[in-house]
């Protein structure tokens, strides 16, 4: 190969290298959500009720304790698991039993789920149980129009009265 040809081919090889770099740096496109879909994100962190209620200590029990430890009530720390069910248009979309966190099982239960759904108008029902008996003591029902590519966030906050749709 003569010198000009070599420089030319060198240029070509450099160009091929950066072309590969430039191309794969942003292509091919990745489809995360189909064009007609929307996203439901169910996410919350909630400390369920204690498994056992607080109770008064009997006088005999109190007498056995050191004087500075004589608290009249005892509260077992372990919490119940949280059970959630989410229905869309009458069909169960998602169900989970989230155990409490922490070694002593006294922490909050955390739930996160991303659910791709068809965009449009949907009827959502959510139920949550946070007691040891497993009875659904919170529930909510909403009809929401979720446009394509939008996110419907379903949070839960007991202080605000239960499920929050955003």
């Amino acid at each position, binding site marked *: 190969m003569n010198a000009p040809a070599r420089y030319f081919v060198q240029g070509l090889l450099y160009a091929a*290298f950066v072309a590969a770099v430039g191309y794969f740096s942003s292509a091919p*496109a990745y489809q995360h959500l189909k064009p007609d879909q929307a996203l439901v994100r169910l996410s919350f962190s909630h400390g369920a009720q204690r498994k056992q209620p607080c109770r008064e200590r009997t006088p005999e029990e109190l007498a056995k304790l050191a004087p500075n430890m004589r608290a009249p009530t005892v509260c077992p720390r372990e919490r119940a698991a949280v059970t959630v069910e989410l229905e869309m248009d009458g069909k169960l979309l998602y169900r989970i039993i989230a155990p409490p966190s922490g070694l002593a099982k006294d922490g909050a239960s955390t739930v996160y789920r991303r659910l791709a759904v068809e965009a449009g108008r949907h009827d959502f029902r959510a139920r949550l149980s946070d007691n040891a008996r497993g009875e659904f003591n919170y529930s909510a029902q909403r009809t929401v129009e979720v446009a394509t590519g939008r*996110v419907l966030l379903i949070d839960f906050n007991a202080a605000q009265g239960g499920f929050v749709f955003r």
Partner: protein
Amino acid sequence: MLRMIQHAGRWFFHRADALFNQVFGDRLNPLYYLGAITYWLLWVVVATGLYLYIFFRTGIEEAYSSVEYLTVQQWWLGGVMRSVHRYASDALVLAMLLHLTRHFVFDNYRSFRWFSWITGVMLIWLTYASGINGYMLPWDKLAQFVVIATAEWFDWLPAFGGTLIRNFIAEGAVNDRLWSLLSFIHIGLPLALLAVLWIHTQRVAGAHTVPPWPIAIGTTVALIALALVRPVTSQGGPADLSAAITTIDLDWFYLPAYALLYRWSPAELWWLIGGGTLLFLAAPWLPPRRRSTAGFHVLVHPDNRIIPVREGEHLLEAALREGMPVPFECRNGGCGMCKGTLLYGSVDYGLYQDSALPAEERATGKLLLCCATPLTDLEIEYVPTGMPGNVPVRVFTARVAKMARLAHDVMQLTLKVQGDQVPSFYAGQYINIFLPDGEKRSFSFATAPHQRDHIELQIRLVPGGRFTTRVFNEMKEGDTLQFEGPLGSFFLREDSSKPIIFVAGATGFAPVKSMVEHAFYTGMKRRMYLYWGARRLHDLYLADLPRQWAREHDNFVFVPVLSEPAPEDRWGGRTGLVHQAILADFPDLSEHQIYACGSVAMVETAHPAFVAHGMSEHDCFSDAFKLAPQLRAKSAEMVRLGGAP
């Protein structure tokens, strides 16, 4: 299976090398500099990153808008910097993967190379962590995708327990502090990357960490051109947590795992990446193992040094590791710079380009040091780029200042070097004296290096020897002679604390004298034992000197050993072979360093016996023994056996 992959890979690289050699020339072939190119790209990334950092503002709105400012208003510099920053990071991944693949298919990742390999695996992690972290900063839609995917992925880990994602669940959950954290990490991770990279190449003898300038410039210019042709922009406007990411242009160099994350589950991805990492970490020790090349030794000219070769090590690496000035360039059998001559033994020539070593040259005994591995002990020669060793070898002229007979067959020569320039040397090294016809004879310095005004040699009469008979019969004070030096790797290693055993046979005492006097001079506190073996009492020509040392120094012990004492010697000391005396005193030699200098016969019998008694090969250059038959054939009369640290 693995062998087949490696075989195919080698074939591929070999072809590509040949092609690139035609285009770039064999000295500037980028495929020979993949590691160095990766290194260079990292510097490009760092430099452009620093510029971006000046303008980057931490904050929900500011993050996006400051990057937009750079990209749009300041496109002519800031925009180019941003694009080059991104593209150089991508090119870095590509070059790194090629570099890794090359070392893998050429099987250059086992035995002592495990160190580079393992640190390399750490580099992969750090590179990806830095890159992925970088994608979070501009807070565009891609940043949103990366942040959420990272949180979703990491939440699987018990440490996070699913709570990480709560920080990115909705507008308002994110605050300005996040960018302070992210940009802090984006400085920290690359710093760690640089630190590990420094370690990565630390043990590679003569590593190229900068590519040749034409390659560095070519790559950089190509990246700038790409930046101008296809500037990097933010995607889809500022992040909006109430909008889902639908379609996104992904960087497939850094983010393929994030596409996989949504095909698989976080757990599966963790298993894949964790398992892959473990497999990589274990790779240097996994089959297929290849034939071991460990334990061979090479006598290298013109340094006249004997060096060990480690398992899987090419001759070039072994020589560079020993500090020899071997010329080289591509290290991959492309350029022919490292060509040497094989004088003795056989090698595996390795895979190289025919242009670098044509068959007819190979037939005349040439080999490429960067590709060849030993199959036996070897003797090779090369043309040094400079002078061998740390101390330059030079030719000196000296005058014989004094001649004294130390014994009937030992002459002490005192040399005054012309210009009073006694060369610097290490205690135990030697010089070659030139004979009129250009032949050389080696003699050890008997003086210690601090002795600056003269050199002492102790020369034994070899019946029929040309030089030594001349010394005894014709040489007189005032004569001049020429010598080259200093030479040899047999010298006192001061970086060990083990007690030392010196073994001297006959005039093997000379280098020992140099070493012991040096040790006293520097105040070395290690225990030293000198075993001096000879046939008769009068062969211990300077025995009073070590006796005096023993009286004056607590840490020095002198044990003379005679093999054939005559009745008139009235010898009451140790008798027998000198190495047997040592073994009787030291049944376990594992905690000692041994320096032996004596006849081939002495050293040949002593070595296996020492090894059998636990002498570590590290504490002694056993090569002298293996090569002894070779050396005997040559003119060498003394064999030196030196301790390594």
